[in-house]
């Protein structure tokens, strides 16, 4: 009896060891194709985003949201005087808003009403930074800018913003946290175009207005 018990325990331990080994092997081998995939949370209109974010926000019901946008290529062209045209090409299909109070991320569709309401939300322009890698010099840079009147073209996955160089180049702590390390601050120069790859536009926190 005792012998059979010992054999049974040995068998169980052996099976457990093999299982642990196999699981370890499988986990180390696996590359999840969906790693980093943003599962869209489903917001179409700015007023819905406000309601959802305010409901979840820890800060007395009003969410402070940081807008960010990613694109493979960003081009800054001179329009007139100190106004530039910032073109985001090959963008993702949604914008991301991050609540500074709880780090919750919300995804807003480009086809919603965000861009139509941009200038109501960011009165006097949105203050933010344009981050990217300079296509010519491969330098990692970010530019403090003011962004207004975006225009989205769903066919070409392209967003065109109007921007101004910011005189006051202080960058808020919330934005600094979102800029990857190793990027140095630069200033847009008058009459000078800029080409960036792997670009990101980040805008300072804002409380969304009532509809």
């Amino acid at each position, binding site marked *: *009896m005792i012998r*059979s*018990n010992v054999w*049974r325990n040995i068998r169980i331990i052996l099976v457990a060891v093999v*299982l642990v080994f*196999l*699981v370890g092997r*499988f*986990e180390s*081998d*696996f*590359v*999840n*194709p*969906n*790693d980093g*995939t*943003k*599962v*869209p*949370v*489903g*917001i*179409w209109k700015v007023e*819905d985003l406000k*309601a*959802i974010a305010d409901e979840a926000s820890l800060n007395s019901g009003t969410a402070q949201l940081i807008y960010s946008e990613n694109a493979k290529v960003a081009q800054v062209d001179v329009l007139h005087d100190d106004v530039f045209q910032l073109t985001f090409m090959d963008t993702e*299909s*949604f914008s991301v808003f991050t609540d500074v109070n709880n780090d919750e991320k919300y*995804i807003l*569709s*480009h*086809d*919603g009403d965000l861009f139509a309401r941009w200038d109501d939300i960011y009165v006097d322009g949105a203050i933010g930074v344009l981050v990217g890698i300079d296509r010519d010099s491969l330098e990692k840079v970010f530019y403090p800018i003011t962004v207004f009147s975006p225009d989205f073209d*769903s066919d070409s*996955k392209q967003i065109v913003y109007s921007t101004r160089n910011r005189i006051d180049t202080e960058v808020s702590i919330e934005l600094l946290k979102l800029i990857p390390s190793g990027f140095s601050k630069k200033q847009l120069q008058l009459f000078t175009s800029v080409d960036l790859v792997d670009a990101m536009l980040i805008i300072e926190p804002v409380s969304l207005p009532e509809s």
Partner: protein
Amino acid sequence: MKSLRQIQKGAPSGVSRFRWFLIGTLAFLSLSAWAFASPIGAPPDGDFHLASIWCAQGDRLGMCKLEKVKDSSQVELLTPRTFSRYQNPFGHFCYVGNPGASAGCTNVVDETSVTELVASGRVFPVDQISTLFYDSTSRLASRDTESSAFRIRFTNILFFVGAASILLLVFKRFRTVTALAFLVGLGPWGTFLISSIHPSSWTITLLPLFLVALMVAMKEKATTPRVFAALVALLIWFITQDIRNDSRYFLIIALVTAVAWGVNFRREIIVRPTWQKVIGLGLLSVLYFQLLHPLVRNVLSAVGSSQIDKVFNLTTTKVPLTLMNLFGGNYGLGSSDTPLSDLVVFCGIASLFLVIYSTAQRVSRRNWLIVFLMSTLLILLPLRADLDDVGTSGRYILPLYLMCLITYLASVETSAERPLITSKTVSRILICFLTLGNSIALHQTMRRYITGVDVIGWNLNQDAEWWWTVGPSPMTIWLLGTVAFGVTATLILQNARCRVNQ
């Protein structure tokens, strides 16, 4: 071996209780593997059920909008475009109809499919939007579809394991019988549906337990357990009757079966005084005409003389396909474009016949007749549906099949010397067949969604195109699911081999 002998000699009930606790835990693990196996929209009619769940509580920001249909008292459900089967190339149903396409496309989010609420094509009267199933599961749904999928799926699994464990803990009499019936009868369809977002998850859980509760109510001698079992049956009736359109039919079949199985007619006729016989007969008549007759009439109307050729044709062609689908054959779970292999079907059928082979001599002629009559419904119900050109599949008759198995196994005469399964060899072959069938079905289902069937090979981790953003890797899920099922089967069959007097 020691624990087996201990139980046979009347070991402390703590050992037995621990064994059942282990069975419950491992069954939960095994079903959890199935919860990971397919994406959120995979179950049959997934778009319909998701829309119904998302809208069960009316308007919900970013999830549902109810739009009144012009000039009627009906509303149409507007749900995220990603839930729409036909409106876009992306979303939760992008792979349907193309076996080579993985579910990777569900994570491609284009400009139009992100969150816009569009008409789902589902129109209901205002007061009939929701059922208990939809209402309950909708409370677990949120705008985050992946989290919602996990919450609902694991709750459904917990509901199955919890409800079965609690009831079988109380109804000791049919514990092993029911566990064995679930083990042999659930098959790929049962395990897939229980762990998915589908109302059948609840009917597969509750209908067999309803029959067990009725059987306890009929067979127990003491009053308290009888009343308790009857109350449980009543509760299950109220929960189950509206979950699916066909639930009520199955409830009635279970009721009639339990009465036919539990009543000793000879004794009733001889011993009871005349007035009791009259009342009993009256009650039976009411029961028949109120509940069973509509079903009988419906089924029999199929067999008119003008339709004999059609009946013959369907009985010999389409109905067998439906019966084979009960074991996973002909077309696949969820995405019906990919059937499971014949090996899975073979394992399911072989297991059933092994159980019958090892117990058939111990079932009385009367109980054989009851099981036979129940089994004819497995043919007649799909036949009726086929005659009306209503698509049918094995999953529709799965609750009935489980009830047949429970009735059959509960009819097997057992004693302390002669348990439910007597042969160790049969028991071992059963464990092999059942585990192999479950493992292959799980692997093939995962393969369908992870890479599409154009990729072959045992390693599901390799070249994966789709997987959940959380949780272990596919191979870990498959391995642990297979082991958990194998150990569950072993423990249940060990119990079936050392069962004491019924």
